[in-house]
């Protein structure tokens, strides 16, 4: 396992960056130009007071885009990976929170959002589970990048490597 990682680490790092960055970029871009949708989706979680939830809804897509760009081009990848992991942890916590409180919503992860009527409870709970698993996978990508931030096709390279070349 260790030798496998040693051998392929730069490629795994690249793939992890592209997965986490790609998903964050898509999610951010789909929401960034629909502020009222995003604000409504955030408010639907009923975690923050409505006013604050709206501000979070306006800012969150842009934060996702910013983290995504850093990850994709490989600039401050470790910092971006930590941010990405934190964001995923928050998403997971938020979904667990709505699930536990019995609220039925569309997560609004890629746009949309808002309450869903009780007849679709089973589908919504299934969606919650898949969303938690997906975000968990993305958080693992972030965690890997924390330990191995430098890989292929990255703007930033470890100083050591530059010296060796």
């Amino acid at each position, binding site marked *: 396992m260790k030798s496998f990682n040693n051998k392929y680490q730069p490629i795994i790092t690249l793939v992890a960056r592209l997965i986490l960055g790609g998903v964050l970029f898509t999610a951010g871009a789909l929401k960034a130009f629909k502020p009222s949708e995003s604000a409504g989706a955030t408010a639907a979680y009923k975690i923050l007071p409505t006013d604050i939830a709206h501000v979070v809804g306006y800012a969150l897509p842009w934060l996702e885009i910013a983290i995504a760009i850093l990850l994709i081009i490989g*600039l401050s990848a470790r910092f971006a990976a930590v941010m990405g992991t934190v964001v995923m942890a928050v998403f997971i916590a938020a979904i667990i929170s709505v699930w536990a409180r019995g609220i039925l919503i569309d997560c609004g992860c890629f746009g949309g959002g808002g309450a869903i009527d009780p007849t679709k409870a089973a589908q919504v709970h299934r969606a919650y589970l898949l969303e938690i698993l997906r975000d968990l996978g993305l958080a693992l990508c972030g965690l890997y990048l924390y330990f191995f931030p430098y890989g292929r096709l990255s703007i930033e390279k470890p100083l050591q490597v530059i010296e060796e070349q």
Partner: protein
Amino acid sequence: MVKQAKAQSASKSGGDNFTRWLVIGMVVLVVSTGAIFSVVSQKSKANESFASLDGFKVGAAITATVDPANGSGITINTGAVKTIDLWEDPQCPVCNTFEQTNGQYIDDLVRSKKANVVYHVVSFIGDESVSAANAAYCAADEGHYLDFHKAMYLVQPSLENSGFYTTENLVKIGKYAGLTSQSFKDCVTKVSKLDLVKTAYDSMTTYKVQGTPTVFFNGKLWERKNSGFVLDEFTAAFEAS
């Protein structure tokens, strides 16, 4: 692994710290610029939806009472032979569909005093429903509930709790509906009718109302046959009641 560990120690040098702060600064810049852009575009979208209220015709003032006996509904034409109880949430999209189909007919019934109509403005969709319901009671106090109700549904945002029913926008809806007084503005700003809003919401259980819109004709629940709303069906149901 070894290489990366060394790189990590190298990144503690001053130069890299500078890069880090630069990157953090850029992220903050992008996020705040984006958020400001979103707020501004949200504002202009709200203004656009108000354009649909241009030329809104304000009707004559009508006295409305609020009766604790019926769950603090906004009651008009007490004593008329037929009664319609209407349960609506300001943010509920289906209520808007109902309003666009049957609203004018009900308005006419109220204005011609043919029916005693009780508007139960409930607020189970969230904070913005509470704000809007409060404003509805404020409007009822000043005799323009019907106009406010109509205007409010005309500009109803398609998304719930998305920052549209703010104090500012509710006062603005009121202006279109003929509510220009300082007392209305104060009532909306101070959320003066919160008690009534709560009583109305709590009475849903008493009347076994599980969703909105719900209609009672003379206290009897109306069960519609069509999946959508059809004016003829509603009219016939009222006539038969």
